[in-house]
């Protein structure tokens, strides 16, 4: 319990750090920070809205610490300001809509590639030096060293443009109304396949290598020899003695991987014109919509922290030593 509480405090501090970066960045840039933040608004924003925006981002009369507290206050009350591009929509609404798509895409891709990568890693380590191991190891090197942008572009070129098997944009057929109908859900699946394949291609290799290396380091342990000496079947030794213990460090690498997934899903969404956070961020960068760009960092950090906490909890469940600590 104490362990989880300590982690929670740490995550809170990390979130405040991200907010602090947001607060100081416009103020560190040469020039007037208000001007920098809201220059893209031009004359379109009504003066009272601009005033409200300034207040949200801590541009109040007073010393810096007062401005900082004002900004932290608005963030912790859930107010991230309003988008300039999609005015008058609040940033939380714009990002919230997109977050659903990103988490759906990212979550499924992470789970699929974690399961697949772990499975491949176990088998490769068990048959170390076999042709299978070579294919998995070398394939993993290739897959992990190619940038997500490149993988996305090659996948969209091959299956989208050249073969024409799958759509090259949007999360669903734009002609359909979003509803829980079979037709709409089918369309979502159909549009999600290519981005999903791309993300899995980017991620699976990393999980496979981590698992393989963990397994190999464990296979020399005494308790594995002992299990074999007892005459247990190969599958039982592989899965219940080696893999179970090798999984533990892999779970913690999962936490770090979530950050990579977020990054990877950013560019994949841009390439596939998928309406998730990445695409919103891309549009916001093009339009210099700073409230959305800043909100994005906070939302992504929060997502990452929640994911890390879930991993922490599962770690406690998997490793009984931590419960006593």
């Amino acid at each position: 319990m104490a362990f989880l509480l300590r982690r929670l405090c740490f995550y809170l501090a990390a979130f405040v750090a991200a907010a602090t970066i947001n607060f100081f960045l416009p103020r560190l840039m040469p020039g007037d920070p208000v001007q920098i933040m809201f220059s893209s608004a031009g004359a379109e924003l009504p003066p009272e809205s601009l005033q409200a925006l300034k207040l949200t981002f801590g541009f109040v009369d007073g010393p810096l610490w007062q401005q900082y507290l004002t900004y932290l206050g608005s963030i912790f009350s859930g107010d991230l300001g309003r988008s300039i591009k999609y005015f008058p929509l609040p940033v939380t609404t714009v990002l919230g809509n997109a977050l659903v798509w990103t988490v759906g895409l990212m979550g499924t891709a992470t789970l699929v590639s974690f399961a697949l990568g772990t499975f491949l890693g176990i088998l490769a380590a068990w048959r170390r030096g076999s042709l299978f191991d070579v294919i998995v190891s070398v394939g993993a090197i290739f897959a992990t060293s190619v940038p997500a942008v490149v993988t996305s572009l090659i996948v969209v070129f091959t299956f989208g443009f050249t073969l024409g098997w799958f759509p090259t944009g949007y999360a669903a057929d734009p002609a359909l109304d979003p509803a829980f109908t079979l037709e709409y859900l089918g369309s979502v699946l159909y549009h999600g396949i290519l981005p999903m394949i791309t993300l899995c291609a980017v991620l699976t290799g990393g999980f496979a290598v981590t698992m393989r290396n963990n397994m190999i380091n464990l296979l020399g342990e005494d308790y594995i020899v002992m299990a074999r000496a007892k005459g247990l079947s190969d599958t039982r030794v592989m899965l219940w003695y080696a893999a179970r213990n090798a999984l533990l460090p892999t779970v913690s690498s999962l936490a770090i991987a979530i950050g990579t997934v977020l990054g990877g899903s950013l560019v994949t969404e841009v390439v596939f014109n998928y309406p998730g956070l990445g695409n919103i961020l891309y549009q916001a960068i093009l339009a210099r919509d700073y409230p959305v760009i800043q909100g994005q960092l906070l939302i992504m950090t929060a997502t990452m922290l929640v994911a890390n906490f879930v991993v922490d909890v599962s770690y406690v469940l998997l490793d009984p030593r931590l419960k006593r600590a």
Partner: protein
Amino acid sequence: MKTSSFPLIHNRKAMVGALIVAFILLIAIAAPLLTSYDPSARVGRPHQAPSLQHWLGTTRIGQDVFARLVYGARTSLAVGFGAGLLITAVGTALGIIAGYRGGKVDEVISFFTNMVLVVPNLPLLLVLAAFIGQASPWVIALILGGTSWAWGARVTRAETLSVKQKDYVKSAEMMGEPRWRIMTFEIFPNLISIVGINFIGSVIFAIITQATLEFLGLGDPKVVSWGTMLYAAQKASALSVGAWWDILTPCFALAFLGIGLSLLNFAVDEIANPRLRTGNRLGRWQALIRSGEGRL
């Protein structure tokens, strides 16, 4: 297997990786000899398919893709190695100091390291780059160095903790050597494989991230690099108008460089941790791509 004082030479992965990286490095250096075209000038009609005159076709505004490829290699490599060096230097220094000094110093450094690790990197870089505006390659290298050292610091710290217990460190302490000397001359040389893995990993990361930032339109579009090539091609909808050469050229270049560096990285990892070797079977695959001499 023969043991050698230069284990990298006897590792096929390392050889193939080194050859790929050396090949790209050579192209980057010899760029003016390989093409007579100016990479940023308009030298032909827009979006022409590859021909004898333009080996890899032309871009939307009539620039020669091959010229952009070879000159762009310079930028991508320079940023990759520059930022990689910076990331490794910061990470190694902080890791050794935290691991060796321990106590309060360690607590502070570790706290910041863990914090940087948990804030997602790409969104953070995007926010920084968005405020800076059209970031030049060197600015990108600097912000990469400032935000991406955490993984290296964590790994180096863990390794320092075990090296610190060794007898030679204890005896250096007994002899009253100053702390900076112990850290630079007793501990650092024994971490060299970790530092090497960290360095190559950071170079890969820097090259990928620079390309990504530029692809998203945060770089300086006037600079010729593989990232800005991707950006320009994507903006000109190269794929939907069928100009595949425009977008696939930087794609394959990035993939090729990434694979070369990763092979090197895995090789260093295998040498530092011999259990991970795949064994002789790897030779089969490598025979396929007909690499140079040398036995695994």
